[in-house]
């Protein structure tokens, strides 16, 4: 197995992990992290599969650079919106996903209701 293919396989696992996390984890920070994990998985596959025969391929490398910037932009927007939601509702969880949130309250950073309401 070439190192490229190995990266790609790991990328596949990360992608599946990220998808699961994005769907299942209620806390917004977890979701945003999960998105980054699944994106990284896709990048690994893009670069890894492209050079599984051992020769470096600049095309997917450039694509991944583009992809990373896009992912950074998306992450920044997601974080900003999550913070805005925290300001407005005092909560880092999307409405409707509360039930699971309480079940996992132990590993959450900010307990719901702790945030500054209305940016006081």
């Amino acid at each position, binding site marked *: 197995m070439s190192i490229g293919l190995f990266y790609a396989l790991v990328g596949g696992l990360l992608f599946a992990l990220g998808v699961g996390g994005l769907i299942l984890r209620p806390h917004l920070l977890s979701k945003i992290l999960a998105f980054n994990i699944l994106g990284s998985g*896709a990048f690994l596959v893009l670069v890894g599969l492209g050079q599984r025969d051992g020769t470096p391929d600049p095309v*997917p490398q450039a694509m991944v650079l583009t992809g990373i910037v896009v992912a950074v932009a998306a992450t920044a927007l997601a974080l900003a*919106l999550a913070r805005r*939601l925290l300001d407005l509702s005092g909560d880092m969880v999307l409405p409707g996903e509360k039930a699971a949130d309480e079940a996992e309250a132990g590993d959450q950073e900010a307990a719901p209701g702790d945030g500054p309401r209305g940016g006081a």
Partner: protein
Amino acid sequence: MMTMVFDPASWLILLPLAWATLAFVLGAGRGARLALVGLGAQALLALELARRVRDQGAHAHALGGWPAPLGIELAVDGLAVVMLLMTALVALPLGLYARAYFGAKPKGGAWFWPLSGFLIAALNALFLSADLFNLYVTLELLGLAAVGLTAAAGDRMAVAAALRYLLATLLGSGAYLFGVALIYGTYGTVSLAALAPLISAEPAVLLALALMVIGMLLKTALFPLHFWLPPAHGGAVSPVSALLSALVIKASFYLLLRLWFGVFEPVATVGAAQLIGILGAGAILWGSLLALLQTRLKMLVAYSTVAQVGYLFLVFPLATGVSPEAGVSAWQGGIMQALAHALAKAAMFAAAGAMIVATGRDEIVGLSGVGARLPLTLFTFALAGVTLMGLPPSGGFSAKWLLLMAALDSGQWWWIVVMMLGGLLSAAYVFKVLRQAFLPAPGGSAVGRAPRALELTALALALGGILLGLFGAQPLALLEAGGGR
């Protein structure tokens, strides 16, 4: 070489990017006039491009002078140009509408112009791109612009809706990107033209197709992946709702059409198409039912979008693995439905926005007296409803006619039942609104006026939906001239 200087395809991308950037530099709340000039020019460009496709057929541009597979190509064909025309002709009246709307209600409009400029640029770029990875970038551009616009309403519900929308759209494009990665790994290229002769039923390719399809279904909000749409479209400010419902969801649908009936045609199966069709049927029935149950006007219209999206996806079972005639009919019907829904839903959200401006509230029960005070807007809503119900003469009817024809031609009668039921259900929710608006206003009428420009631009869009039904042969001829399927 000088001829390229006025190349409409390139300018359709450059121009909205340019005015969006300028509008950003001008600052919050500015840039409306600039944007309207840009939108007007865009309509002319799209018409010019359509003329070229009609006379010369489909053609491609190698960007930077680097032909695929090394570089990225723009492909101008019938389908692309029809979608570009749709975008231009819906965006222009919506632009006028938005200017009047934010004139009356400035909240949420601070960065509307640059955001919508990027949104329109993303749409145009997406419709023209012939490169899987570039399509990913346009999808992200579109998604972020749409989310930014949704969040601009600024209240708690809107921000939550925007986040949900963002996460859904990121998951969708993530799945798509993974598919692209698999395709590049398998074939060493992401150019659609280069891939077309290569595609074969490798496991990786099938997986890639599955991931891309699921990603696009999520972005188009096909039942049961529609959860993000109603709060986002219903919670945004009205001009934004109109843009999102009319145009944005069409982009991912378009991409799916492109992939399914384009490069991936050799590996697309009837079974998968039927499955998509079943989801479409679910969308039609479930979306209509929920629309009927809504108490807020814009949520009703948003759920109507969920239902109407279902009709779009009937193309897949009706055009996969059937006779050529049925296939063409279904294909035309699907595109007609996309166009008709774009016009009608833009009109309906615009009309809803005018009603909300006038009544000051979003509840359906608050609409009493609107019929007497805003007859023009109610008329607009009804006309848009005619298209959504699929009654003649309207683009919606033409779409239904073509889809029914395809269903009968290919012996798939079960879709007929779904379409008929859906039509009746949509009548039920449209008339729920009309009926309420017909009632006299309760004592101490609170119905004010809406700016005339709001009413007229909404009416223009609704009339567009009707005219599409009377002159549907023209876009279909354009589709044909540009290479058909």
